[in-house]
């Protein structure tokens, strides 16, 4: 079993990260080296400064708020929670002073951020089982959401265990030791990490997160990067 833990927690993480970074860079370079469309694709009336309106469109989704307000709320909560979880993971690698302007225990949000994210992903998933979104969806849309849900669920479960049911056999310090080891290329999987009652959760969380990272650069999830330039095209 130890070998499975090791493979998932160390080499697979490295492979996933390398493919994620290289895949993303290659895709961006290839894309941005392709010639641009020569004519404008602007929608009118024009609003200036265009980049500011494009930023607003990309991050605040005004049309979605107007036409699908409930979906908009879920989308906003999802993206906010996702951002907070990224911050949480960075804080798990090392203590970052500026993040502690509001003093908090790692992770932010007392376990509720993960809960919100998990519920939002479930909502995204279930709406794909209902027409007309069902008729638009293809298998990868479901796979990605399922992967994300599993990763969030097992990851949050570790947070919930510490916060909500006082199960603290794995502490933030244990995770920090593991993650910083990975970052500084001195991977070390301590016995505490693999022998605790929650180790299996960690294994599954990392496994699904790896798969998600592996898939991400080749999927429509790149909208996280493309959204802004595309909105700029619409604003002219």
């Amino acid at each position: 079993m130890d070998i499975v833990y090791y493979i998932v927690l160390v080499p697979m993480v490295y492979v996933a990260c390398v493919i994620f970074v290289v895949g993303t860079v290659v895709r961006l370079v290839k894309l941005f080296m392709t010639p641009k469309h020569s004519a404008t694709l602007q929608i009118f009336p024009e609003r200036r400064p265009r980049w500011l309106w494009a930023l607003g469109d990309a991050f605040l989704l005004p049309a979605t708020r107007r036409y699908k307000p409930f979906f908009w709320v879920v989308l906003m909560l999802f993206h906010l929670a996702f951002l907070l979880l990224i911050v949480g993971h960075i804080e798990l690698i090392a203590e970052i002073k500026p993040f502690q302007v509001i003093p908090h225990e790692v992770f932010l949000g007392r376990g509720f951020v993960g809960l919100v994210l998990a519920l939002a992903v479930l909502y995204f998933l279930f709406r794909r089982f209902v027409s007309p979104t069902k008729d638009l969806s293809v298998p990868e849309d479901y796979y990605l959401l399922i992967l994300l849900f599993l990763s969030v669920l097992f990851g949050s479960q570790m947070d919930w265990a510490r916060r909500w049911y006082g199960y603290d056999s794995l502490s933030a310090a244990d995770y920090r030791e593991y993650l910083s080891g990975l970052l500084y290329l001195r991977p070390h999987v301590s016995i505490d990490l693999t022998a605790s009652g929650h180790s299996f959760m960690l294994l599954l969380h990392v496994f699904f997160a790896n798969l998600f990272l592996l898939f991400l650069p080749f999927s429509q999830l790149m909208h996280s990067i493309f959204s802004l330039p595309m909105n700029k095209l619409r604003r002219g």
Partner: protein
Amino acid sequence: MDTKTRDELLKLFQSKLNQTMRLYLETCTRCGICTEACHAYASMGQVRYISAYRHEIVRRIYKRYFKGRGKLWPSVGEAKELSETALDELYEAAYSCTGCRRCMMYCPFGIDTQMLMSIAKLLLVGAHAEPEILTMLADTSIEKGKSLDIFKESFLAGIKRLEAEVVKKWRIEAGKKAIPIDVEGADLLYVALAGAHSIIPAAAVFNAAGEKWTLSFFEAVNFGAFVGDPTRTRLILDRIINEAKRLKVKEVCICECGTAFRTMKQMSGKQPFEVSAITEVHARYLRAGRIKVDKSRFKKKPITYHDPCQIARNAGVIDEPRYILRHLTDDFCEMSPDPRYNWCCGGGGGLVALGEDNLDFRMKSARVKVDQVKATGAEILTTACENCHTQLSNLNDHYKMGVDVQFLSSMVADALVQ
């Protein structure tokens, strides 16, 4: 479909793959936010008319031939072979889309369905499966550009017959031509449609404003753009560009034709002349006091205005028609609180040019437009696009809306004060 044909079609597909197109093809999350955006879906409730459903048909072929994932694991993205069936689906998607770009307003990433449908249309042209009538009309326009001398005499004779009608609307000084043609050094080249309704009122207004203008030999409409053929689109444009350069005009004014205006404005590249829509020119004359109109002409008739998608949302002529209408009436009612979200009339993208063939679809798919017009309570429904005018007139007859559908330029000409 044989391999050679498929390879040729894929080459055409490849020719469309610029950066923007790739972004549009690779970013859609199939979130369905655009579901209610399309008038065809909103009116008919059929999934195939959702904009994302339309572009997914193009996207699946893209994945199959241009993305590694589509080659290695096609089922995950439902990548699809380019086949005869796929061509049928492309036809259905492209020729039920008016290219109004209303859905682009809904999409969080601003995906442009009209652009994606241009791939579908080009593949259909490559497979000789496009609506023949559009190609035929495009080729006739191109032919006219190539051999103008053959058409010239009959054109001039036809125009001569219209001059008396122009003078009825606006008296001109003796010796002056009511419809000047081929005038080198004129300030403005007016590009009309093949029809008196597009020439007489415009000529009267130009003469009333004391404009130094000249009429183009060519008609403005660009069937190459409707059929989605970039080569034909360019050739049709070039006829007018060359004429404008030859006559050394400062401005090319496009008649009430949305596609003609947008194509000339946005696709002609940098030119030594300005491009304007006739609505912009009329608003300019009113602002400068070069023409005056009589408000009592349309008294007691509430008026509403349909923003042609290619002129308003897609080319920015939004305030000008309203400025003109403020001079024509005190009883103007807006159709939509935000012109960007105005419903398309359902006639663009070459659909009107297909005539009776798709009349049933055009009527059914524009029910939301009819509801929008009715809600205004207007008696006069005005617009500034030939396609929209035809479609709105058809809707008026079909749904017995009881409105009087008018061109905005004709209303200006009718209300001119001598």
